[in-house]
């Protein structure tokens, strides 16, 4: 039993990272009032960019993760242009971005030959001597660098959003853009900023899947994780730490699947693979049943802002 649990929990952080980073990136963006459905697409961009830069620039994992973040931010400028400048309906823009990114990454992966090329990627590190502790050592002190980095990112982003002037402005823009505008804050600027910064985390999330977890690129490899991240944001009520909790929960569920088969328990393989999605739906039901609608989302979520709109 103990080895089963140890092995399972040791896999959880790595499985949880894409959800954690994805949800956090979305939270940053949505706190500024921009409803963001692009996660699935931008994660794919990060995933492809991560593998591509690994293959092209000499196999340096750290560099490829950085390039993945920059690529995702660059592509997110298209989304920013659509929703902030052109005030396109944010649902339509988000969906279009997902299909744009799916099409683009699928296309590029094949044309350039980056698809299906195995890489060594990033390997886990060992925090010696703590890693020698039985059970706990394997779970907490033998993860790859990005797992530890994720916790650091959470701390930094939490401080940035709630204890700095910039964070105050971003939140103001998301709660009441008219008030922020009257206070002299550029609604457009801060929304674009939130989109670009949030998207870098989405890129990192995607790159983690391709460079660290699976260690190759295949078209569509995020398999809906972006949508689960979108659901996680609602579950976490747009607050960072609950999002991390939710990510760990989903990490547990997803990490369990291969271990059940490995333990020799006979389960219908494909029905089991439905579990993350069914779990997400279950979580959303719980959220809907316990929360009163609209009291925790940013006040102006999803509404474009025009200053001289006359009532």
């Amino acid at each position, binding site marked *: 039993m103990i080895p089963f649990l140890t092995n399972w929990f040791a896999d959880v952080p790595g499985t949880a990272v894409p959800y954690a980073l994805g949800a956090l990136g979305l939270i940053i963006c949505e706190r500024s009032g921009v409803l963001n459905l692009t996660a699935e697409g931008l994660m794919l961009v990060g995933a492809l960019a991560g593998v591509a830069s690994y293959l092209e620039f000499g196999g340096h994992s750290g560099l490829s993760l950085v390039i993945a973040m920059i690529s995702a931010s660059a592509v997110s400028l298209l989304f920013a242009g659509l929703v902030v400048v052109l005030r396109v309906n944010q649902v339509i823009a988000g969906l279009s971005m997902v*299909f744009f990114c799916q099409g683009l990454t699928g296309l590029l992966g094949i044309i350039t030959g980056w698809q299906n090329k195995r890489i060594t990627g990033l390997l886990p590190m060992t925090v010696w001597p703590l890693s020698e502790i039985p059970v706990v050592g394997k779970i907490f002190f033998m993860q790859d660098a990005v797992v530890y980095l994720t916790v650091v990112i959470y701390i930094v982003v939490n401080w940035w959003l709630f204890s700095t002037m910039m964070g105050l402005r971003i939140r103001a823009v998301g709660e009441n853009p008219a008030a922020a505008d009257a206070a002299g804050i550029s609604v457009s600027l801060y929304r674009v900023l939130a989109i670009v910064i949030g998207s870098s985390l989405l890129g990192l999330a995607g790159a983690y899947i391709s460079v660290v977890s699976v260690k190759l690129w295949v078209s569509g490899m995020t398999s809906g994780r972006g949508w689960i991240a979108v659901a996680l944001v609602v579950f976490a009520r747009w607050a960072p730490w609950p999002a991390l909790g939710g990510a760990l929960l989903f990490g547990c569920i997803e990490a369990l699947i291969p271990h059940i088969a490995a333990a020799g328990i006979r389960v219908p393989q494909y029905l089991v693979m439905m579990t993350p999605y069914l779990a997400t739906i279950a979580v959303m039901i719980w959220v809907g049943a316990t929360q009163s609608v609209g009291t925790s989302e940013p006040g102006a979520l999803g509404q474009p802002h025009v200053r001289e709109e006359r009532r």
Partner: protein
Amino acid sequence: MHDVAILKSGASSPKPHRARSRFVLDMRQSLPTWKQALFLGGSLAIGLAISVAILAIAGISPIQLAFELAGVFNATSLRGVLFQAAPMMLVGLAASLAFRLGFWNLGLEGQMLLGGIFAEGVSIYEIGPPQTRLVVMGIAAAIGGSLWCLLGGLLKMRFRVNEIIATLLLNYVAKYFLFHLLYGAWQDPKTAYPQSAPLRPFERLFDLGFGVNGGLLTAIAAVALAGWMVHLSRVGFYMRIISANPSMAKVLGVPIRAITIWIVLISGACAGLAGFVNVASQEGRLTDSYADGYLFSGALIAFLSRNDPLVVAIVGFLVAVLFITGQTLQVFYQIPFTMVQLIEAIIVMSVASSEFFIRHRIRWLRQESA
């Protein structure tokens, strides 16, 4: 009063005056229809131009592209287009009916899968005599799609789950359910692929020649019925009120719940029929990929048709042309099919951008020196 600490650094001495001109954004009250059509057409043209440019970069010159497009209208390709138009129109219809009401039904692919599964189920369990088997399959497919869509609808109405997420996640659930069947109980024993045994001849949609086939006729019938419902019936009237102002609809006694459930069922049914058409006409058996790419195609068609069923027929046909051209490019020029997805996304983005110009007026405001 004025010895309060004034915290603003940077004193309030007035700046020297400069005439400053800038852009100003105005909301329009209204715009004549012809101008709207102009913006729409223009943006569509820009989207297509960008797509052509991307294809050129990928190695297909515009001349080759024009040649291929023209080639689509020869007899064999046209037949393929007409076959492809049927599921396109049906998913376009499914999407547009739901979107019209503000119900973001993004579970089109899952509903298509369930439609095909239910139809295949009728075949496997031999429900109904051979003469009517096909009709029973069609009805079953519609029911399958309806139920899957209803699931998403109930999650929204009863549990306030956002339907975008709910219907999208259900796509994945449907896909895995299909795999479960195709690698399991329903797998054709003669192959190792995830597909069922072939359908019996009387379970296939008929082909009258020249590409006119059962699927296309089903789609056209659906379009006609939907067009009537939306434009002529009281249901369509109620739908307009609900989508324009749901609070007002509630207060004025419009049967919102009933209409929403009805549309959810119909939308799912159309998608289910699309799945049935794909399984029973060209594929001839239950496979794992007959719904691929239809979610965004459906959304694209709905969006470009402004959710009008009659326009859906035309746009559906055009998207079918796009699909077949994409297949041709794939076969002859090794351009991956994901290119089609990319082009669809670009077109939606350009058309969505035109809304900005339709809804707002940009003026260049010249500010004079005093």
